């Protein structure tokens, strides 16, 4: 398996080319190549500290790369603000859910109305997540972890995104709930949304991913279809040389 290989054949919706990024003087991404083709689910895997979340932040504009290019739909977008990218259809569901814990489910969804989305956000969200309709008046902080993650996904999907970036969906959730959430991800992908999932627990996401990219110490160490990556995954997580 070649290192730093760009996965996917057709024109990708999101592409990172030889991206280097740093926090202050410490470089954490050392030339990352990654592509999210249209309508595919790409899993970005790797152990803690591999640079997965930083890669996602570079992709959605929260961080500017020191070197390299970020392309969205074929256009170079280095330096474009994350809100501008979100407005045109790139939605991020951050680690830790990113819901307003002291607002109700309905109020959390209403926040989208201020971004220019119409009142149809409620219909879209409740249609996709019927459980949230039952909890519409409940304060988000009192929802279960899985329901909070659903609310975060509902908020993201109600904006009708073309690309969905999900960071650590399984964080702090029971395996059964994680499985159900990934079923939802598969259903979202089936509707044609391109998805980049950052995940530390590889087994949970490989079932729904079309392509997988394994990162280690700020570099892409393997990429390809999930069934081909068993050895590389074991090496990345257990620290063996691949």
């Amino acid at each position: 398996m070649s290192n730093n290989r760009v996965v996917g054949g057709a024109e990708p919706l999101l592409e990172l080319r030889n991206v280097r990024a740093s926090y202050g003087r410490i470089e954490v991404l050392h030339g990352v190549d990654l592509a999210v083709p249209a309508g595919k689910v790409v899993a970005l895997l790797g152990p803690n500290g591999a640079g997965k979340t930083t890669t996602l932040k570079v992709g959605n504009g929260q961080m500017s790369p020191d070197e390299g290019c970020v392309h969205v739909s074929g256009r170079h977008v280095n330096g474009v603000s994350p809100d501008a990218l979100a407005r045109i259809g790139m939605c991020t569901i951050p680690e830790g859910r990113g819901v307003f814990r002291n607002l109700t489910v309905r109020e959390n969804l209403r926040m989208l109305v201020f971004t220019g989305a119409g009142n149809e956000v409620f219909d879209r969200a409740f249609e996709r997540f019927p459980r949230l309709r039952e909890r519409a008046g409940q304060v988000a902080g009192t929802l279960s972890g899985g329901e909070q993650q659903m609310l975060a996904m509902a908020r993201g999907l109600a904006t009708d995104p073309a690309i969905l970036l999900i960071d650590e969906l399984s964080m702090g959730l029971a395996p059964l709930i994680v499985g159900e959430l990934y079923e939802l991800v598969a259903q979202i992908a089936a509707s044609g949304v391109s998805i980049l999932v950052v995940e530390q627990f590889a087994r949970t996401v490989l079932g729904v991913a079309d392509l997988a990219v394994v990162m280690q110490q700020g570099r892409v160490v393997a990429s390809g279809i999930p069934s081909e990556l068993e050895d590389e995954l074991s090496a990345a997580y257990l620290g063996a040389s691949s």
Partner: protein
Amino acid sequence: MSNQAPPSDPTAQSAAAERLEQGVAELHVPEPTADVERALVRAGMALPIIGLVIVGVAWYGASGTGYVNDQIPYLISGGLGGLGLMLIGLGLFLRYSITHLIRFGVARMVHEQQAQADRIVDAMASLEQAIRHGDA
């Protein structure tokens, strides 16, 4: 957890992808050097006008009094300050508009040289062909 995803709607998703493509085409991608140069050219156009206004105000103020002691502040703050702004503005405008002009000229020259080289190569190929036919 009871969840039911709505049926796939490829039309909606192609609309989202189209919206993304259109939005990306309309995005302003920051280009630090070009953005700064554009701002400096605008400053170069604005500063001489501001300087001219200041000189006019200073002249009006100085002409309203017959005392030299009262006229000197107008001369220094208004006259020299305004003149300074005009010179700085003119300098900026010339510096960055000339840079732009030179870049354009160089790009044109390179393009013309390339076209010339292509013509020469074509002519040489025709000559070579003619010579070969002549030998045969």
